[in-house]
């Protein structure tokens, strides 16, 4: 009997942590009959909550430590809301990893700019980890992160640690804030003109709501980053994760298999067209 890619593998919920009012992180360890599979930054798993359903969620942990699967997600639908209520030790089904990866290899000997919007930082965090672990292989390294309000910023402690590094430029902004916030206020694209990187030799990785990605790409291009150096991560309805169920189609692409990470020039003709 050949391996059935629709068969889920039981993992155990090791830890569940609240990140913001609607976002949480789960850490999973393999159950007695499951094993760990290495993953690449940008990939996702199909996570299954018993009897409720399955959702695709990007992996947001460190690729160098695949024994614990880390996933950060918003609680927006039936499955994620049920997942949010799980307790330590309960089972979560895992299928994957699926999908394409961030261009970590391609970014060697380049400047790297990562632009994340909201929950978009979660699928990018593994890329940050991997680049930091091979820091010398790249020149400038910049992270631009925007969220709705200061309370919506993810991984705040980690961001503070990153900021203290001299080899990592981290700029954070929020769309709105109370007077108590001493940081930047404005959309994340306002951080692009001033960031320190050399556009022609920059690889950019962008993830966030579709509108934010479009505007970010436009501003990166305005600064001179070549279109074929820009990568985005997309999202669509998925039922299988490997190109069989047909739900995630975006033009000729299966977002689960040809994506979720896409080089921008490949999809630019379709992005911005309504209802594709």
């Amino acid at each position: 009997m050949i391996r059935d890619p629709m068969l889920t593998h039981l993992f155990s919920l090791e830890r569940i942590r609240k990140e913001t009012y609607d976002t949480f992180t789960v850490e999973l360890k393999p159950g007695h009959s499951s094993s760990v599979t290495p993953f690449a930054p940008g990939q996702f798993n199909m996570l299954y909550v018993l009897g409720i359903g399955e959702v695709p969620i990007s992996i947001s942990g460190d690729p160098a430590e695949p024994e614990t699967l880390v996933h950060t997600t918003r609680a927006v639908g039936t499955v994620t809301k049920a997942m949010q209520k799980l307790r330590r030790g309960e089972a979560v089904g895992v299928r994957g990893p699926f999908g394409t990866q961030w261009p970590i290899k391609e970014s060697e000997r380049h400047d790297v700019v990562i632009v994340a919007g909201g929950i978009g930082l979660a699928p990018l965090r593994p890329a940050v980890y991997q680049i930091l672990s091979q820091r010398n292989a790249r020149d400038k390294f910049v992270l631009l992160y925007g969220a709705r309000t200061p309370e919506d910023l993810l991984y705040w402690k980690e961001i503070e640690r990153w900021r203290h590094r001299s080899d990592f430029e981290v700029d954070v902004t929020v769309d709105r804030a109370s007077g108590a916030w001493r940081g930047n206020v404005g959309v994340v694209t306002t951080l692009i003109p001033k960031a320190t990187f050399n556009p022609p030799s920059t690889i950019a990785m962008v993830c966030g709501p579709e509108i934010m990605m479009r505007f970010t790409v436009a501003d990166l291009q305005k600064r001179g980053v070549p279109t074929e150096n820009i990568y985005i991560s997309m999202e669509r309805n998925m039922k299988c994760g490997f190109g069989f169920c047909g739900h995630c189609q975006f033009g000729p692409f299966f977002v689960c298999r040809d994506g979720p990470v896409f080089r921008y020039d490949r999809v630019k003709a379709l992005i911005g067209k309504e209802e594709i």
Partner: protein
Amino acid sequence: MTRSSFQVGHTVVVDSQHLEQLLTVLRKRNYRILGPTVRDNAIVYDGLNSAADLPVGLTDEQDGGKYRLKRVNDQSLFGFVVGPQSWKRFLLQPEMRLWRAKRDRSRLEILEEREETPKSAFIGVRSCDLHAIATQDKIFLNAEYADPSYKARRENIFVVAVNCVKAGGTCFCSSMGTGPKATAGFDLALTEVLDSGAHYFVVDVGSKGGADVLREVRHREALQSECHIAERLVESCSERMGRKMDPNGIKELLYRSYENPRWDDVAERCLTCGNCTMVCPTCFCTTVEDYTDLSGKEVERRRRMDVCFTMDFSYIHGGSIRASPKSRYRQWMTHKLATWIDQFGVSGCVGCGRCITWCPVGIDITEEARAIRESEVGNAPTISARRQNYGNA
């Protein structure tokens, strides 16, 4: 009766009264026999107990939104084309269980399905459907991932194809290069001939397995004249197709036509009922559903065929990507004729005409493709003729 040496490519003749033997031989080899039979005034694919279960002396009249069976004055066994079903119901299955999980105190266990894979003989597979099976093979038996159930079923079928001698009212396999003559993917291919009182089948051997089975069926060498008659019947069929589609450059055409006003026109007619996806032999989208018993101790995950015309289909948190009916029809047709080619290397359309026949409002994929193509040249109607006649009914 001559004892001939069989090879793939060989042609023999089986008299009509001996066709039953073919079914018997297959049944003896543990194949369940599946083929066309009449049910609820349509020709469907289901179990056959004997050749008598075939739609003897019947033909089908098909047009946009219309399907009728009619008696003919002969004892033809395959004098019709295709009905509302296709062979995907036996290979991909409309519904199946993926796995079960049982919770036993604190232990949870996933039980993999170990189904008994039935051996099936498909009797009467038309060329369009052979191409459809081949395209679904490309999807489900590829290098990286394979569907275990599809694979197991697919490897256990015996295919008896039938070359159409009568073209259907909505058929256009000639345009798509997918028929009416079966050229690959079969064990045996039959062309039914009724000629001056004689009734026989010209049989092409398509595989070693086919040759093997045919050996046990009463047959004789095919005469040159018989082969010619059969060829001419099939040729003439290919010239009398009910519909036509120009497949040249259709992929590029649809890629440039996302904003064509014709889509608004179709949207006014399309009910998004999804019949077309259900009858289409290549449509493959599925979804999964979860079931639990009341105690929560047993959990089941099932897969069933899905329809891209629903609001659910493209739903992600907050809303559907394709909310308008227009975008959903556009998705279906653009996938079928264009993006499918980039995905799988062939067209998703095999010209079987089922979507035209079974659309309750008779939307015709060949007419829509033509209208879009002609709208580029500037001469053609972007309002369908039917709408002009009937207003916005």
